[in-house]
């Protein structure tokens, strides 16, 4: 199994700042916008962006939640692995809010489809946007595209994109892994 570095810590940091600036351009003071990280791995990116917006760009009152999509996935009972649920923490109203879904990798688009269904359980948002660190273009099964993307990657199907965060793997990096 070989792996190639797609992004190192410095490059990840530059991309995160660029994504934060793009969010500010569209959402100003975030008074009607909420950030929702998709479980399990989108929450790290979402937390990082929320911290950056608060500390580096002095945006007050950033609302951040985590959404678990396990019970809304379309592959229940179809794989070998049992689907493991994670926690959902949305302690604010999403009714009429502008939501930014945040995930680390956009691949087939099925997770985002599930998230779009799951969020309806919490209300009717005004608008939903999608932010991903890695966009694996040409791999989509559904007509879903990100509004904000850190880096576009063309990978063949048996290659995997692995995103590491300091919080759980000890370093910020993105690898292309050949299985």
């Amino acid at each position: 199994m070989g792996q190639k570095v797609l992004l190192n810590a410095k490059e990840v940091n530059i991309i995160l700042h660029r994504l934060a600036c793009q969010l500010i351009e569209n959402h100003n003071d975030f008074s009607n916008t909420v950030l929702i990280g998709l479980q399990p791995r989108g929450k790290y990116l979402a937390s990082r962006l929320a911290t950056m917006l608060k500390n580096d760009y002095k945006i007050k009152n950033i609302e951040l939640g985590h959404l678990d999509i396990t019970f809304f996935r379309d592959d229940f009972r179809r794989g070998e692995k049992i689907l493991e649920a994670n926690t959902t923490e949305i302690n604010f109203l999403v009714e009429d809010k502008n939501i930014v879904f945040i995930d680390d990798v956009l691949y087939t688009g099925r997770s985002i489809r599930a998230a779009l269904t799951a969020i309806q359980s919490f209300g009717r948002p005004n608008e939903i946007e999608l932010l991903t660190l890695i966009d694996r273009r040409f791999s989509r099964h559904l007509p879903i595209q990100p509004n904000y993307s850190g880096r576009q990657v063309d990978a063949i199907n048996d290659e995997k994109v692995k995103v590491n965060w300091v919080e759980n793997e000890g370093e910020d990096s993105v690898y292309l892994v050949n299985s």
Partner: protein
Amino acid sequence: MSELSVNHLLGIKYLNKKDMQLIFETTDHFKEVINRPIKKVPSLRDITIANLFFENSTRTKLSFELAEKRLSADVINFSASQSSVKKGETLIDTVNNILSMKVDMVVMRHPNPGAGVFLSQHVDASIINAGDGAHEHPTQALLDTYSIRERFGEVRGKNVVIVGDILHSRVALSNIYALQLLGANVMVCGPKTLLPKYIKGLGVKVETNLQKALNWCDVANMLRVQNERMDISYFPSTREYTQQYGVTKTLLDSLDKEITIMHPGPINRGVEITSDVADSKQAIILDQVQNGVAIRMAVIYLLASKIKH
């Protein structure tokens, strides 16, 4: 993630500690789901579940049906009083006919102990025992132990007394298995006539004095006297039973600690507990009902994940 070690839920006796923990963890997620504005998830939209109730039930049947509908399963209901069982059809024939309609899972309550085990050996569907005679009622025991875990943080080391009609109770037996599996100390308390002879063999303490039992315990699970299962008189009168084994506010206030009161329902108010006890903060009876839906969602979800196309 691990999966259940069983393909059916026939009794707590067949589960191990890991199964119980997995069910509880999954229940935590479903409790969060059923407290959302929209309480439904689409996980089981291609699963059909038959609820076969050969014995009357209100709360358990409603709880299962709600759990199934909140998971988006298709549900069919069957009750023996309006069915071909009255015409002499056997259990296997009845169930096989229903399974021919492409049913994936059967939730069954039956007056005979072992009916679920028997069925699981003869039909190709996942079986959930919703009560088999005076044998087991596993989902009730799961929701009871889950409610204790929710109240105290853990079940291990807690002193739990089950009070009342142990002889005719499937709730008592399943609770004993579940509580012991999770490391609780269990006592049964009731008139000698309602304590089965084998009960000491299960490793539980036995007490006939309610005051002593309440002084010992952290939790008292009050059972209903099951008059419908009694073929002889096991105690002189309901009034005398209430005087000996009924929990009142005065009795609770006389203890030097606050204990938690549970009841699997339906309550005979004024018999096993008085209204002021049932409605007090010490009682977690309505929490048990809410946890019942989440527990049943978790059990159905985990068993359904083992049914492959």
